[in-house]
């Protein structure tokens, strides 16, 4: 069989699949960021912290209340989303008329506070969260052993991503949302409650982060820095995809997951940097991002 740069095809297939799995997290997280930026013009630096918080909420459900993975997959994004809406109402909504930078600074500060609180109470070693029984074990694909839970991550993230894209780009509600950000006064004049819509949008974006957090809980250790390590990469993904582009965020997320996965085979030391190198190249050649519209 053919070999590519000395790597046997079985290994390559396995790595592509793993890249796709990691890309799933990038896609769901960058989608939330893109929704929030596209509709609210807020650069939500608290995204990683809220992703982490949702993983902790799932852990708390299990350990304090005995509520398992499946209910937590719905409940904990809802709780984190609601918390996000409180943040939006009480703090972020005061910044809409100011420069982007203020929103970035506020959410960055919030991220530090949220992380600090969790670190203080739970330490940094991480807490164990078991894979739900129904998804334990795995399937031998011939070229690799695919844990069922990882397969589930890909399925769940694809469903959520394309559901969101459909909601925003193809439904009446989505049309209101897009119109509301384009011209809030005019849309308000038609009797649409624009501030409420914006709050719900922020809550929804945050809930997406929460969903990714619960997905991640069983495979990474649940710890306060899990979001911090991911968020910078996710921002790079959003920039590469084009700020505010929904489909761009989704596709770039999967794509960069795969690129990163391949880097781990060919030059593992560079796997941390490769996304940023791509970001720099994209910014030089096409500053609006791969899927962005020129401003």
């Amino acid at each position, binding site marked *: 069989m053919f070999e590519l740069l000395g790597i*046997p095809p*079985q*290994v390559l297939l*396995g*790595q592509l699949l*793993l*890249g796709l*799995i*990691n890309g799933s997290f990038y896609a769901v997280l960058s989608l939330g960021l893109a929704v929030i930026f596209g509709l609210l013009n807020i650069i939500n630096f608290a995204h990683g912290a809220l992703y982490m918080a949702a993983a902790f909420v799932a852990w708390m459900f299990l350990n304090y209340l005995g509520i398992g993975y499946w209910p937590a997959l719905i409940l904990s994004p809802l709780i984190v989303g609601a918390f996000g809406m409180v943040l939006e109402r009480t703090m972020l909504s005061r910044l809409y008329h100011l420069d982007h930078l203020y929103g970035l600074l506020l959410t960055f500060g919030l991220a530090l506070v949220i992380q600090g609180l969790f*670190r203080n109470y739970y*330490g*940094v*070693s*991480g*807490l*164990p969260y078991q*894979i739900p029984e129904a998804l334990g074990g*795995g399937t031998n694909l011939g070229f*690799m*052993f695919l*844990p069922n*839970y*990882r397969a589930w991550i890909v399925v769940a993230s694809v469903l959520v991503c394309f559901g969101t894209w459909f909601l925003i780009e193809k439904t009446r509600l989505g049309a209101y949302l897009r119109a509301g950000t384009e011209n809030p006064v005019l849309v308000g004049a038609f009797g649409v409650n624009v501030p409420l819509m914006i709050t719900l949008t922020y809550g929804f974006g945050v809930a997406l982060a929460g969903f990714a957090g619960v997905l991640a809980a069983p*495979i*990474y*250790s649940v*710890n306060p*820095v*899990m979001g911090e*390590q*991911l968020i910078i990469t996710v921002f790079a993904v959003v920039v590469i995809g084009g700020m505010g582009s929904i489909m761009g965020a989704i596709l770039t997320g999967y794509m960069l997951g795969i690129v990163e*996965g391949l880097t*781990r*085979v060919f030059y*593992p*030391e560079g*796997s*941390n940097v490769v996304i940023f190198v791509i970001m720099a190249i994209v910014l030089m050649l096409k500053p609006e991002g791969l899927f962005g519209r020129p401003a």
Partner: protein
Amino acid sequence: MIRKLAISLSAFAAMTGAPAVAQDIDVKLGVLNDRSGTYADLSGEGSAVATRMAVEDFGAAEKGMDVEVLSADHQNKPDVGSNIAREWYDVEGVDAIVDVPTSSVALAVADITADNNGVFLISGAGSTSLTREQCQPTTVHWTYDTAALANGTGGAVTNAGGEKWFFLTADYAFGHSLEENTMDVVRENGGEVVGSVRHPFPAQDFSSYLLQAQGSGADVIGLANAGSDTVNAIKQASEFGITQAGQSLAALLMFVTDVHSLGAETAQGLNLTEAFYWDQNDATREWTERYEAEMGSKPTMVHAGAYSSTLAYLAAVEALGSAEDGAAVVAQMREMDIDDPFFGKVEIRGDGRAVHDMYLFEVKSPDQSEGEWDLYNQVATISGEDAFLPMLEECDFSKQ
């Protein structure tokens, strides 16, 4: 009557080592480590607590020593750590820096300490370079190093039949050093190294590297990393069916906090090397109880090392009557017969390496474990001579 009392008092004072009382020595210790990142639980505030406990247990105040303990977060970044170390020596007048996990930071601090004639009491860092290629007359490397880990876990696993090794290595000074030391031990014991992969530090997803390890045909996957990296790698190895398929894992550096985070279910059967375990004897249990009252968790060997190295340091300062000359204090520490409550007989060699016994532990299975922190069975004791590398001639500062 009063005169008589005064005379007997001064006689009493003379008998009980009065010079210290009269001297009034000021000592400032700086605990520098990771207080917020991946190594915060195994070092962090716990090391500061342990250092303060050492000051108290030494009875510094009663001996007329005024000891102050500072602490700071180096965020695992050599530049941040260097700046704090310089500021501590130049502005704060710190006499000794304690702990400093993350070898890349520790190597930077070792040089700065030598330039300022301070003392560097290393507990958290593991690179053997600290007492070899980059040895300094002001360094004391107390708790463990990568050679001891390699000799302990690497030797045990190879002798138990794990002949072909693949390494998963954290891409910085500590990981490189641990990988190199373990490769040597594996080869010495008749094993073979079939490959290695270096991952960025810190990393979350190890599936890609694990798959490479699986494809290598190795018997053993050596994890030359630490903290949450090791925890995530072990968790994911079990998820991807690697351990079930017959390859075994050797966690070359694991602390009790990591094992606790994994839980006995996932970690059972792992071999690991440590210098201290909280449930080893009455002295460790009694100290752990006091430590836990303050920190809320069990101490790691890094915390114990911060405690013990501070005790030894203060004893040397007391004997010298001053903490000013760092190199002299370390020379004094080398001269002393140290019988430590946790580490037993400790000899500080000319290169600053503290030589003491290390222990090989096995993680208990969930049925053996009687509580969430009841995690280790002791398998073997490795004598200091077997655990640590021999001293390099050019690093023997006792002769210079």
